[in-house]
């Protein structure tokens, strides 16, 4: 790290200039404080390694929550030319289409506090973690193929969720390029009993209230009506199916392109040239896994509705605001140096942030831009932001995805006690239901960066503007 020179551009961005075998510069969206965090691990070095990959356009980008990952940093964006570039599973992550869904309700926080424990218990039964406590759904191979091909439209046909849930979802909940036949039997076997489950680690379902509205016009367009309104945030991904797809294709690429592996500083940077069969196969499998993840969050949204109705009665309404992916590659057209280019935009721990008048986002958000959700760590604030035109110029239409880890799980377990944290949170009227105390200690807020600082940089840089701040009432964790 000592020989990496970063140049400050302004209070919210830094540059590593193009040199030696870099194809593009590295642009880092960060404040002075967040840069100090980034300099503690190898993420900037990883950003530089990504800048050397073939066909990368513009910049190797790092979002304000960037931290060290495998090959690619988490919190990174890289756009690779669809003809001359490459596609890399490490630039998307093991948890394909890990993402976030927000639902608004017609309840206020004072409606929910008196029944929070009952609600959490009901949710825990209806939205299990998935290992140990199993899913309520188990699919045949044919059903799995349908889900991978079509996403949550399959579940709406079975009266689980609504068409509005599909409309208010990135890509309408499915990517057209999905080919289930490119997903291995192993991946299908891992995922078949996992629909409707959260997973563990930093995945959660959180009941929150609107704490502060920064932009009332945009908030209203998103269905966020007033401070005190209760909302639900769901964070999870493609579970074992997506993880296996990533593993399968990392291995396949290493086997097919050993000469590429030899040249790479880290094996996890392995890629397939964009026009190769393997690149196309991986992309098709990634789309299938992404559709599985959207179906997962869709079912969890539906199960959440059922749980709320059981506790609060049939009059309660939960509406899907939007659903965003933060580990994915998308085929998009962007302007680079005055020319439109077709690129695979790799977003790993980064959220799409499309602005007004973008045909990719739902009609109801054409005037505002798309909603973006940035969850904080356990017990801290989460944020709703809106995408911008400026993001298209600055960051391939992208912004941050969360707080970013500072401390290893091992260290967090040594430093924090799950029961103590749980008690402290309860004193602050935040109720946690988790599969284990260790699951709580590993997610201690001090193990993460300051999400307030992350969203401030996104706002100041103009790549995702603040709309509302949310605070937790109760959380389910795997």
């Amino acid at each position, binding site marked *: 790290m000592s020989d990496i020179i970063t140049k400050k551009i302004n209070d919210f961005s830094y540059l590593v200039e193009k040199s030696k075998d870099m194809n593009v510069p590295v642009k880092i969206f960060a404040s002075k404080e967040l840069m100090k965090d980034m300099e503690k*691990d190898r993420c900037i070095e990883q950003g530089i390694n990504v800048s050397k990959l073939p066909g990368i356009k513009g910049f190797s980008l790092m979002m304000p929550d960037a*931290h*060290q*990952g*495998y*090959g690619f940093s*988490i919190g990174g964006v890289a756009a690779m030319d669809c003809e001359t570039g490459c596609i890399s599973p490490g630039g998307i992550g*093991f*948890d394909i289409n890990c993402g976030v869904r927000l639902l608004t309700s017609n309840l206020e926080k004072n409606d929910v506090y008196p029944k929070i424990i009952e609600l959490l218990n009901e949710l825990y039964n209806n939205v299990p*973690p*998935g*290992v*140990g*406590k*199993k899913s309520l759904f188990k699919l045949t191979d044919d059903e799995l193929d349908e889900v991978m091909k079509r996403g949550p439209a399959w579940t709406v046909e079975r009266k689980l969720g609504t068409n509005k849930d599909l409309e208010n979802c990135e890509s309408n909940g499915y990517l057209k390029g999905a080919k289930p036949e490119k997903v291995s039997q*192993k991946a299908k*076997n*891992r*995922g*078949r*009993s*996992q629909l409707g489950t959260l*997973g*563990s*680690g930093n995945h959660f379902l959180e009941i929150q209230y609107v704490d502060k509205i920064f932009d009332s016009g945009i908030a209203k367009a998103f269905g966020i009506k007033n401070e005190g309104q209760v909302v639900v945030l769901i964070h999870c991904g493609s*579970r*074992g199916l997506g*993880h*296996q797809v*990533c*593993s399968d294709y990392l291995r396949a690429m290493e086997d097919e392109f050993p000469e590429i592996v030899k040249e790479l500083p*880290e*094996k*996890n940077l392995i890629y397939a040239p964009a026009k190769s069969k393997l690149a196309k196969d991986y992309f098709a499998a990634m789309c299938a896994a992404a559709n599985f993840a959207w179906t997962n969050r869709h079912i969890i949204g539906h199960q959440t509705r059922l749980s709320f109705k059981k506790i609060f009665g049939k009059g309660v309404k939960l509406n899907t605001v939007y659903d965003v992916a933060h580990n994915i590659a998308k085929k998009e057209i962007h302007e680079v140096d005055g020319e439109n280019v077709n690129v695979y935009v790799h977003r790993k721990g980064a959220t799409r942030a499309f602005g007004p008048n973008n045909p990719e986002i739902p009609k109801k958000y054409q005037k505002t831009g798309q909603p973006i959700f940035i969850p904080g760590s356990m017990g801290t604030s989460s944020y709703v932001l809106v995408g911008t035109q400026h993001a298209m110029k600055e960051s391939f239409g992208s912004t941050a995805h969360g707080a970013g*880890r*500072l*401390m*290893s*799980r*091992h*260290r967090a377990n040594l430093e924090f006690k799950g029961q103590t944290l749980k008690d402290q949170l309860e004193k602050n009227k935040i109720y946690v239901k988790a*599969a*284990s105390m*260790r*699951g709580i200690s*590993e997610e201690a807020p001090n193990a993460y960066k300051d999400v307030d600082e992350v969203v401030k940089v996104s706002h100041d840089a103009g790549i995702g503007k603040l709309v509302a701040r949310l605070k937790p009432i109760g959380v389910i964790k*795997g």
Partner: protein
Amino acid sequence: MDKKELLEKRFEFFDHTADALFRAYGRDLIEAFSNAAFALSAIMTDIELVSPNRKRRLVVESKNEESLLYDFLEEIIYLIDAENFFLSKIAELKISCQAFKCRLEAELLGDDASNYTVYAIVKAITYNEMLIIKEPGFVTVQVVPDL
């Protein structure tokens, strides 16, 4: 800690931002691989509490020892997700390597994961910082799984 103590300990965890990093120890490759499987399982549950009620056989073939370790541990993860199987004991483990081909056969004993507390779910094994260090009578394997 000296090598004798490390062999008794079987495995230990270290700091690694984002996920977990463990080292497993053994007198030979077989023992180190076995202890790596236990370390992986220990991320997810209390392995001392898991009963040896079910049996699974594994055969893994890979091109070298590093890939064999990766593939073996991936099979452990597969058994958890696809069959809800937590590892209790390794009844038998054989490893043989020739030029560009390694083979592992294992008989695993374990139980239904629903019967136990689950602390974390491992997504995948990575090659990140993977090491196999062989000294006379002492083998160390280092693995970073993705959580």
